[in-house]
């Protein structure tokens, strides 16, 4: 008995995920009716349109009048067998529940509280989603001012001695800025992401000169794979910034993309200073300070899109360089460039 009540309650909460004008309202009304063992149950949003279960009752005119009354008074109206209760979500009127047929007043009150809680949870989930989206947008705007300054200085230095090269670098810079700032869909292809990496590396090579040695190896089979924007580019930026820049002498960066079964595996490897594995763990968990927000953000976005299997894998040790591996399925429903 309690099992079926619990499952009914769970279904009602699920149906009300999208609020009182979502697709699941009729099903939720049906659930409430069964829960209360009432003759008719109606759910109305602020416009006063009532969704009835199991069908429209014969006393529909009375019921509508009652709903209008509740919408104005914001208090409980009518008396058994026909009652209408207001639904306050976050202390704000969101709708009305109408119950017809013998049912205990306490039960009606409990049911209305349950519905209000379900609606509140739905709103919280929606705002969490919005927060995640905002974070995505924030990451997209995260271009290191340090890098912009260096790149522009190098280009300026080359203008008189190597005008052709500086023009090309200028265009690389334009491409890079455009890709990083563009307001487009959420997803891109591996090919486009690699293109962004290449423009970035061309600029970094101008800044660092022969100190930066790069090897890119990407299998043509994975070029068409769709993935979220700016997943790979921050990894390469990290490799250059933390692996090569802080030390003297030449550093190597290796970027590899290949197919493995139905997955695409991309790895970014540098032979730079590396870091303590415990620190890497802290960075991935988002406790690494503002300097390494990028890595944790990429990790979270990958998990958000592909599920918990598909986070970043970081292999590192102090002085041993760092290897970051991204694994993404070649096809994931909803992920389209």
């Amino acid at each position, binding site marked *: 008995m309690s099992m079926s009540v619990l499952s009914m309650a769970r279904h009602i909460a699920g149906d009300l995920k999208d609020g009182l004008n979502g697709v699941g309202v009729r099903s939720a009304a049906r659930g409430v009716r069964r829960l209360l063992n009432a003759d008719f149950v109606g759910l109305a949003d602020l416009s006063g349109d009532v969704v009835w279960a199991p069908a429209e009752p014969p006393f529909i005119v009375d019921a509508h009048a009652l709903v209008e009354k509740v919408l104005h008074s914001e208090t409980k109206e009518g008396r058994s067998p026909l009652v209408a209760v207001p639904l306050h979500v976050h202390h704000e009127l969101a709708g009305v529940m109408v119950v017809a047929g013998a049912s205990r007043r306490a039960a009606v009150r409990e049911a209305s509280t349950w519905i209000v809680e379900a609606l509140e949870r739905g709103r919280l989930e929606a705002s969490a989603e919005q927060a995640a989206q905002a974070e995505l947008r924030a990451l997209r705007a995260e271009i290191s001012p340090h890098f912009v300054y260096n790149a522009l200085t190098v280009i300026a230095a080359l203008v008189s001695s190597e005008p052709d090269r500086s*023009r*090309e670098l200028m*265009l*690389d810079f334009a*491409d890079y800025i*455009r890709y990083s700032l*563009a307001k*487009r*869909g959420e997803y891109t*292809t591996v*090919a*486009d992401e*690699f*293109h962004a990496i*290449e*423009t970035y*590396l*061309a600029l970094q*090579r101008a800044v660092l000169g022969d100190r*930066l*040695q*790069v*090897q*890119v*190896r*990407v*299998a*043509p*089979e994975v*070029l*068409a794979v*769709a993935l979220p924007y700016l997943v790979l580019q921050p990894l390469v930026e990290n490799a250059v910034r933390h692996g090569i820049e802080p030390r003297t002498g030449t550093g190597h960066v*290796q970027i*590899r993309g*290949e*197919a*493995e*079964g*139905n*997955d695409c595996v991309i790895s970014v490897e540098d032979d730079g200073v590396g870091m303590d594995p415990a620190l890497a763990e802290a960075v991935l968990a988002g406790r690494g300070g503002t300097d390494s927000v990028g890595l944790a953000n990429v990790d979270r976005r990958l998990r958000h899109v592909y599920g918990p*299997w598909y986070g970043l894998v970081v292999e590192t040790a102090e002085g041993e360089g760092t290897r970051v591996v991204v694994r993404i*399925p*070649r*096809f994931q*429903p909803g*992920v*389209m*460039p």
Partner: protein
Amino acid sequence: MSAHIWALSGVLAITVTTFLVGWRASRLASTTQDFLVARRTVRSRRNAAAVSGEYLSAASFLGVAGLVLKDGADALWYPVGFTAGYLALMLFVAAPLRRSGAYTVPDFCEARLGSRALRGLAAVFVVFIGILYVVPQLQAAGLALSNVVPGAPTWWGAAGVAIVVIVNVFGGGMRAITVVQAFQYWFKLFAIAAPTFVLCVVFIGKGGLQSSEMTGLAEELPPTFTSAATMTVQTPVLLQVDETVKFAARGTIDDDPVDGSVYWTAGETHEVDAGTTLSFSQGSSVPVVAGAPVDNANWFAPVSTRDDLFATYSLILALFLGTMGLPHVLVRFYTNPDGRAARRTTLHVLVLLSLFYLFPIMLGALSRLYTPELLVTGRTDTAVLLLPTKIAPGLLGEILGAITTAGAFAAFLSTSSGLVVSVSGVLSTDVLRGRVRDFRFATAVAGGVPLALAIALRQSDISLTVGMSFALAASTFSPILVLGVWWRKLTWVGAVAGIVVGGGLVLTALVISTISGLTGDWAPGVIDQPALITVPAAFLTVILVSKMTPAKIPSDVAQIRLRMHAPDGLGLTRDRAVASFGTAEERSRLADGRHRK
């Protein structure tokens, strides 16, 4: 003996070369100076060669010639159908499927109909079709190897190819799969075209048909032995003759032991047991396996009976619609950057396949003249391998034989590798999900199970067995793909019903035909070629059940269909980069930068 050494070294050479090509291509990294080239996508032409390389299996390389040798004009439908399947793919499926972003058929099911249940069912059938397709490849490898190394049991070749494939996939040799498969296509084309040219020259140089005692290919006479021939029957066989034949035999014929001269009169059918040795003199006419055309006029003419007609139409339907459902074919299209490129690739595939299939047909006709003893032993699939040494005895024939043998192994390796990679991909993502997410384990399963089946099951003609997996693909996936692309009202319930009905019917036919093959061939012809019944049944089921469940039409169907059908130029799919950055040409006008090519 030297012929065998030549052939063995040919097989070794192609295996090592395949490893090397894959190894080199996957290590081919661009260094600092030219790393920007790495981004280049695969051109349609190379991709088409890769699709063809993966597609041309033992059934194409050995089976087509063998069937032409045995069945004549009727067998021509095999190469026609193998090629025409790509016409259906190009017309109905290629571009929309590519634009849908799906990598495998289960992916397409999920993207189009949003059902996990359907996805799981589709995954199961991908595995079925894949295994059904690998088994004859491995059996053919066994046949080919026992031809090269006399006395070797047939499982040697099967195990050898299976191990090479699994090791190659383990070692990352298939990471550069496009390059490897494109190489395999050109090698196979060379391995079948070069011997055909040389053998034709030798044949014409000897004076063609006029010079010898051969029966013309359209005469109303059975083929004749061009030289005295002795052969040992290795599986029990039913033989019939059209003219009275006298020959020496040692072994068991019609359940009676014989040792000496035997007379067979016209029109009789005789059962020859395994291990029986038959010796024919030069010029005597050739008995053929019961059911095959006996005289050359019959062989040369198309369909003679109504059963033939049914089987032919059934075959055409299976091959025409089956190609689009083969797991290893679809995944190669994913490498195309967009829908248009996918369609262009298919067009190139049509050209490449048409070119290839000219040669096995010619070899099949030549083998009717030169290797008629295969008609007696029933091992017609080895015609391509034996023909060179028959037409051109000596060193030339041995070298040509080594080339065709190497080509045959290239066919076994490329198709099996492609299938094992696809099947293990589906196994690791769908079937073993959550428990064993290990691609290697899946690879071992995808290679090991077909090997066990190949050793356990009785061998029949390669092309017939492969035809069955085409029928299975045509009766399960082609309705989903065609209707999924073109019909709005498809529902996942309808799709599940279609797969269950179509797949169930074909699998039933397969089981019946296997049992009947073991207990005296009593099954009617429709069981061997069921597609003419199962494909319409599957389509009808999908349509009717979808009509009955309109509530299950996915809510985002309009959006998905727009994505699949809107031309690439509109930028709904790939190239928003073009919309925002301009086309490649525009950009290259702006700057002649290295990476803007």
